[in-house]
């Protein structure tokens, strides 16, 4: 059977199954378990209404617990056990082994670099683009084009930028844009992705290129939400455009800037595809997620791989707690 056909059947089964589940579960609840008639009609309606939310929630909760909550616990367990020794508990041995590997510290260093550079650069460029495009007639077209890389996969972006960083032997014409510019200015062509330390930045540019549009879209909506009176008052008081931007606008959209920053930070913590496709961690460009992938699927070392995954988890935890507290405050 062709997989595409199998896919169609799965859609039909999945959607049909969901509809049938919700419909029949409701029927069972109202007709069979707690019928709204007879001597206990009132009590039955109340009981049915107490259970119904859980009927609606059950499939989603089941999937969430199985695919996201359970793995957190299971990964923690795996990181504390040794698979080769029959899942024996080994305490922190996996973490110790990981800490003794230079590649791990290289990944940590690079992840920290990514964390500093990418969210800051994307947010700043996004803010600049939002502020500029909001003021001109063709701003929406400009926005749409800056936003476009968002639709491109990390792998596609990796190919796009590999073409820009491409290098040819000295005597040949450079077909990579960056080297063409460098040689036109009298410099020597470089294999950009193999220059340790600086190559990290050439990889980061790819993500900045993708994420600036995201930052721009959200910040532009926030900028338009600023009450005009505050800006008019500033103009009356004689503030210049720069002053208005930094002293009036930015403080008012500060919460949104934080949101954009944390969202990109989360993405950076999990960054994998770009490094995997462009350098695969060679030339000192390793990052945590790729290190973890190496350990899990190349070295087949589940213990250390899970320990690396737990490091990523620990790094996202502050944002997790902050988000949860924000939401709980909002709901009060």
């Amino acid at each position, binding site marked *: 059977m062709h997989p*595409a056909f199998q*896919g169609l059947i799965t*859609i039909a089964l*999945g959607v049909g199954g969901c*509809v049938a589940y919700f419909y029949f579960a409701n029927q069972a609840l109202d007709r069979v378990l707690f019928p709204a008639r007879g001597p206990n009609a009132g009590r039955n309606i109340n009981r049915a209404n*107490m259970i119904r*939310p859980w009927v*609606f*929630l059950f*499939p*989603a*909760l089941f*999937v*969430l617990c*199985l*695919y*996201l909550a359970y*793995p*957190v616990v*299971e*990964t923690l367990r795996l990181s504390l056990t040794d698979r080769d020794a029959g899942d024996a508990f080994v305490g922190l041995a996996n973490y110790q082994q990981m800490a003794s590997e230079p590649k791990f510290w290289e990944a940590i260093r690079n992840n920290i670099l990514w964390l500093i550079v990418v969210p800051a650069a994307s947010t700043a460029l996004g803010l600049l683009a939002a502020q*500029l495009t909001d003021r*001109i007639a063709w701003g929406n077209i*400009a926005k749409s*084009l*800056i936003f*476009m890389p*968002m*639709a*491109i*996969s*990390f792998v*596609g972006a990796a*190919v*796009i930028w*590999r*073409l820009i960083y491409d290098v040819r032997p000295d005597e040949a*014409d450079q*077909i990579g*844009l960056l080297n063409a510019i460098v040689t036109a200015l009298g410099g020597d062509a470089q294999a950009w992705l193999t220059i340790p330390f600086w190559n990290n930045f050439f990889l980061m540019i790819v993500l900045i290129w993708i994420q*600036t549009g*995201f930052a721009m879209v*959200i910040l532009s909506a926030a900028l338009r939400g600023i009450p005009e009176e505050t800006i008019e008052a500033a*103009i009356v008081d004689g503030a*210049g*455009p720069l002053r208005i931007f930094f002293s009036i606008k930015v403080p008012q959209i500060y919460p*949104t800037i934080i949101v954009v920053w*944390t*969202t990109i930070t989360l993405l950076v*913590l*999990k960054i994998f*595809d770009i490094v995997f*496709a462009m350098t695969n961690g060679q030339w000192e460009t390793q990052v945590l997620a790729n290190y*973890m992938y190496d350990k899990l*699927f190349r070295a087949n070392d589940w213990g250390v791989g899970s320990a690396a*995954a*737990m490091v990523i*988890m620990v790094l996202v935890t502050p944002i997790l707690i902050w*988000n*949860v507290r924000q939401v709980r405050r909002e709901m009060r």
Partner: protein
Amino acid sequence: MDNIAGKKSSLTWAVHLSVAALVIIWLIPTLGLLVSSFRTVEQISASGWWRALFPAEQNLTLRTAPPETQVQEGGVFVIEGNLFAVAGETPTQISAFGISAREVSAFAPGDTAELRRGGQITVATNGDYRLTNTEAFDGDRGARVFVTATVPPDFTLDNYDYVLFSGDARDGMGRAFLSTLTVTIPATVIPILIAAFAAYALAWMEFPGRALLIAFIVALLVVPLQLALIPLLSLHNAIGIGKGYLGVWLAHTGFGMPLAIYLLRNYMAGLPRDIIENARVDGATDFQIFTRIILPLSFPALASFAIFQFLWTWNDLLVAMVFLIDATGETTVMTRQIVELLGTRGGNWEILATAAFVSIAVPLLVFFTMQRYLVRGLLAGSVK
């Protein structure tokens, strides 16, 4: 209000120019890939894509006519003709020629070069050559001549034809395209309904623990899916799903669920209370309210999530590598295929660029046609 008196014109120009510069910088990388995918192999390696519209100097390898055409002219053996005519190519101007692969442009047109096998060759600007020797030429192939010629721009669809339809297992994208499609559509459709019911319960039904559940979902929004790889792969193997489409559909459904519920709940909670309460007073059950009122009204949020999930599953690499692609590689998706090509075909930009563009064309189409919903979803989806 931004037009501060007296500064308008100069500032406006600066803004227009900066935005134009930003847009150009953001567009150039993709443009380079698009242009490259329509160029021939020779053109790509001869000049940068930004010169695609101009004639380019290119090195060609041509041959003289075979020795059987030689004629004897007063003691010397001569082979004459036009290099382009022999190769059946369109004639162009030659700026240099050579007789060894190491020095392809050693001689200027009109010069005479000594052949290693004996004899002399002269090549004119238009490709006419004259090969002379005191002894008879032997062998059955003509002498190789390397020429540097100015070739007009040349665009082709052959790259797409090769990448999509050749059926080549290593370079072809046709099977991977179908495979990606097979992963994407169920993985986009199935989570929507499950999430919609849950979102309705969280938005409009009163029950103990609701606030806690919402917090739980917000927490799961940021859990890295990296943690799920090994535990779930073991689970899939243990219950007999193994690696395959079913596994990847389930995984995408699970990983997309928190965002789906969060987006849809936020949207549904903002629907007018009156409508729902009136329906309740009229005796509608929750199930009816959901299917008749909430679902149709939530269409924009459903569309937003569908676009997100589509882009994310189409562009995904990691989940497919872990849950779908087995050792046979039968079910490889486009992202994986491109990573393979980066390894095996690192310098063949005509194949790489075309393969990459095949994979990003569909998301770009979705992006430009449904941008409105995407933006709306982004604005609703970022945790405030």
